[in-house]
């Protein structure tokens, strides 16, 4: 069918209107001042000590939470991939299921759990264990990120894992590799596309969140997402907000490049 390509027409139109042009709008706002004159000053805003610190902290926290997600998700994905087929569809859905309870409410509920007189501390004190005081600290933010984004690490890794031919694993054992050798030489390298996809799917939202830091950080901790949100919603300086968003997009472009390099065939999709 020659005109099959035309089927992508409406989408192409849509993508240009609602993906490409809006991004160009950000570029425009980011590169002009309030009177519409060209300027670099919005981009330069990132170099103020406060913004740099917010960006640095965002990068640090999202790196840490990405690492935690990876460490938690990999064994989990391996366990899930070993289950029989019928069970897995159920268990994978178990990871999607929490999304039906609103993201804000779920994150808020962590306040209840972590507070000084929260559920966790009540349980801890019942067993005469020391109190856990991580609410309103970066630790709570990392917890919130790990909690919210863990499924986005588990699912791509899981999807790549189940596609690995069982015979390939058997072949490695057959050739003399023990469990850990098989893992490091075969399983791990073969799941790189999933890992990379998972890393970007956790890192980017963690880097740019403002809700989690708001809810679990007690507004004491300013992340780059908060700075941008405030520029738009409170400081009402859209130019600076756009400029900072442009800086963020550097990270997003970097992650797209990563994906292109390691996951050419789109194996590591989350869904």
């Amino acid at each position, binding site marked *: 069918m020659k005109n099959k390509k035309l089927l992508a027409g409406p989408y192409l139109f849509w993508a240009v209107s609602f993906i490409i042009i809006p991004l160009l709008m950000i570029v425009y706002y980011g590169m002009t001042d309030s009177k519409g004159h060209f300027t670099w000053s919005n981009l330069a805003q990132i170099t103020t000590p406060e913004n740099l610190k917010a960006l640095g902290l965002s990068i640090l926290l999202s790196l840490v939470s990405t690492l935690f997600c990876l460490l938690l998700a990999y064994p989990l994905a391996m366990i899930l991939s070993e289950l029989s087929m019928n069970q897995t569809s159920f268990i994978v859905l178990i990871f999607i299921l929490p999304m039906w309870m609103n993201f804000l409410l779920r994150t808020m509920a962590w306040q209840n759990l972590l507070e000084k007189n929260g559920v966790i501390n009540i349980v801890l004190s019942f067993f005469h264990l020391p109190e856990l005081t991580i609410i309103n600290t970066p630790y709570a933010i990392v917890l919130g990120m790990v909690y919210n984004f863990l499924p986005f690490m588990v699912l791509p890794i899981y999807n790549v894992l189940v596609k690995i*031919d069982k*015979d*390939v694993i058997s072949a490695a*054992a*057959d*050739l003399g590799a023990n469990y850990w050798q098989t893992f490091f030489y075969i399983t791990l390298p*073969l799941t790189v596309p999933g890992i990379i996809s998972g890393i970007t799917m956790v890192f980017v939202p963690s880097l740019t969140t403002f809700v989690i830091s708001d809810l679990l950080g007690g507004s004491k901790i300013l992340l780059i997402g908060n700075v941008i949100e405030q520029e738009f919603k409170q400081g009402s300086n859209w130019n600076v907000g756009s400029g900072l968003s442009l800086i963020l997009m550097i990270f997003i472009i970097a992650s797209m490049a990563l994906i292109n390099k390691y996951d050419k065939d789109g194996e590591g999709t989350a869904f």
Partner: protein
Amino acid sequence: MTNKLIDIVKVSKSFGENLVLDELDLYIRENEFLTLLGPSGCGKTTLLRILGGFETPDKGDIIFGGKNINALPPNKRQLNTVFQKYALFSHMTIAENIAFGLKIKGKSKSYIDDKIRYALKLVNLDGFEQRTPDSLSGGQQQRIAIARAIVNEPQVLLLDEPLGALDLKLRQDMQYELIRLKNELGITFIYVTHDQEEALTMSDTIVVMNQGYIQQIGTPEDIYNEPQNAFVADFIGESNIFAATMVKDKVVKMLGAIWECVDVGFGENKPVDAVLRPEDIDLVKPGEGVINGVVTNLIFKGVHYEMEVLANNYELLVHSTDMFPVGTEVGVKVDPFDIQIMKKPESEDEEVSNIEE
């Protein structure tokens, strides 16, 4: 070909409620090319996986070189497997694939390099070291899989339908290649296939399996010429199988007539199965054979003609180099030597039951 290398003793295995192997006994000699032949689901692959260490038997023992290896994990066994779909490591080059087992064993770099070159030469793929598996054709990948297995110098090579995914011509070439390899390496091959032609071409010994039981063990000639039951006869080559009655020794009643045969010891007036290979049936002038019939169908097959003959309401499949047009009246004749008589199973279960060698 005298020493027992592997002894399989009363091995059973089931998956859930599905009994795949039932108290199976088999031994494999050194330097033997042994083929496990049977339809899919007969348990042949399971048996191979048990030998490879990827499955553990529920009951019974695997004795390898005098030692019980039931509990030995795959990576400690002195045998290597060539997998059905090759199972090459797609993230490694050909050289890295072949070197994998040797690196694990901690061999020196020069030793590994020598081995890679030797193995690639052996499978006729010199110079492929730096290629990646997905740039290779199916046949080439298959050879790499073999090369990867044999550099480890296993005592036994297990091959799980290794030619199944190749096209006909390539399959035939690879059959000769495998025979050559086996002779050069001087090791035991255990080969799993559902293709009787492969089995007949390459094997020293064929083990015909069905539903977890061994149906017959023998040389290719034995299996083809003297199938011990209807299953084997039907599975190996084309055949006409008829219900018959053994009137007495060397006399059988089938197709509504009395025939002379060479089989003895079935008793008198006992129901049996009789097998007639299509190429063993001679078509002669009407009246000159034991029974008369009419040719109802004719196909040219290249080497011979394939005809269907209706005689006494029985349909016979006949292969002959002589051509009889459709409608020709013919006489049917079979040499007594070519009539194969088999004990009739009394129930469905017995049909698949273990048969003593």
